[in-house]
């Protein structure tokens, strides 16, 4: 109890370094690497997986604004409207908060389900924005693509979340009630 109180009163650690570093690294991975693998529609959306991680495991203060910032970083490296991913990730952290109340995110199966749903919703939301600006590709095709991206993103999430936990533990970031103090 005392330890939990101590963690809560500590200032957040590495928040902006994790957001900026992770955002830039994943933007580089998406921009320069993933499209070379020629995975087609089954290209994983690792950026959304990372945004979901923040939504699920960051402390209360480390969710909304970092998710928004993460989305804006992605927007800066994309041709789409500035703010599209910013809006989507800020909504994703809300959805992640609700999902966390019902499913334990420490279980791999639950992580798989949440990553599947989260990446699907982000991609579907992005296509909805494209459709609003007259650039949609058709809803049936978009649904199929969102499902493919979600199916490709969920397995890496199951593998990457324990790695992220391990790295944060190594960085000596405090953890209370399952939330990292970032």
């Amino acid at each position, binding site marked *: 109890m005392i330890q939990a109180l101590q963690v809560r009163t500590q200032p957040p650690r590495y928040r902006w370094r994790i957001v900026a570093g992770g955002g830039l690294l*994943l*933007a580089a991975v*998406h*921009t*320069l690497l993933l*499209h*070379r693998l*020629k*995975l*087609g*529609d089954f*290209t994983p*959306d690792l*950026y959304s997986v990372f945004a979901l991680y923040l939504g699920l495991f960051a402390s209360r203060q480390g969710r*909304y*604004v970092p998710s*928004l910032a993460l989305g804006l970083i*992605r*927007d*800066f*490296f*994309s*041709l*789409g*409207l*500035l*703010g*599209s*991913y*910013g*809006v989507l990730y*800020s*909504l994703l952290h*809300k959805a992640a908060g609700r999902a966390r109340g019902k499913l334990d995110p420490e279980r791999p199966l639950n992580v798989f389900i949440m990553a599947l749903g989260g990446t699907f919703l982000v*991609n579907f939301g*992005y*296509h909805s*924005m*494209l459709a*609003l*600006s007259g*650039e*949609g*590709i058709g809803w049936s*095709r978009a649904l199929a*693509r969102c499902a493919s*991206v979600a199916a490709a993103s969920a397995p890496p999430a199951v593998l990457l979340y324990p790695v992220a936990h391990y790295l944060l533990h190594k960085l000596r970031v405090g953890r209370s009630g399952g939330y990292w103090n970032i």
Partner: protein
Amino acid sequence: MRGSQEKLSLAWFLRHPLVATCILLALTIVLPYLRVGERLKLLTFLPLARAQGQVGGSAYEELSEDERVRFDLQRERDRNSSLASENARLARALLDLKALGGPDFAASQLPPAINAQVVFHGDSSNWRHSCWINRGRKQGVSDGMPVVAGRTLIGRIFMVGDDHACVQLLTDPGFACSCLIVDPDNPQQDPESRVRGVLRGDGSAMPHFPRLELEDVAVGAEVKPGMYVITNDYSGQFPLGLAVGVVREAIPQAGFLQVRIEANMDLATLEVVQVLQHRRPELEQQALQLMRKK
């Protein structure tokens, strides 16, 4: 009561994320009209693009005479090798251009072109497709200009900086272009009877000889596999006769024909492209052209 006394500050927005999200959403819709987003993105992208093609500066003035000579010699050697590789790339592009020579449309005159090298491909979103080239406003590139490799359409200029520009590839969902379907076995076909359609990018995640689709093709139009798809100058955005791809199949749908085509170019391996100095004519000029045709 306490809430009504709260001052509207950044901290207030941070405590009310949904309000801030709604404002951001509104800005997302309004800002594209002012192209603020594109300008901001250029600020982020350009240092990356510059870093690709620049060598760090050295204190040239501080060097001795011998060191300067050695330095100049090394610089000229580097320049020679880069010119040789550029020459090889251009020779390859010229070969591609010759290989693409086909029916009569390929003989039509194209606007003057600016050669450019693709600095890097890719986009952080899975849905968008773009690449960056090392030519910009200083070299005469401006928004909306068509980008080709040989005579094959690649995309159009989307954002321009002083020395770099962003190209929206034809697989991007925001890309649209009026096209004609021509029969290579019947080059003397009456231009008025050629089949027309609109090419739209579908964000295809596989830019390796992507499969594209032509929309709004009238039912009953004679479309056979093997026919060429070329750009139409109907909207004035692209010149007539740029190659796009080859028809693979035509599927009848309710009220229109869905034409699937295979692109001529592997967009993932682009190295040298040409920016055509073609500007969309004003409305009055388009009207005059139409009257002359009639």
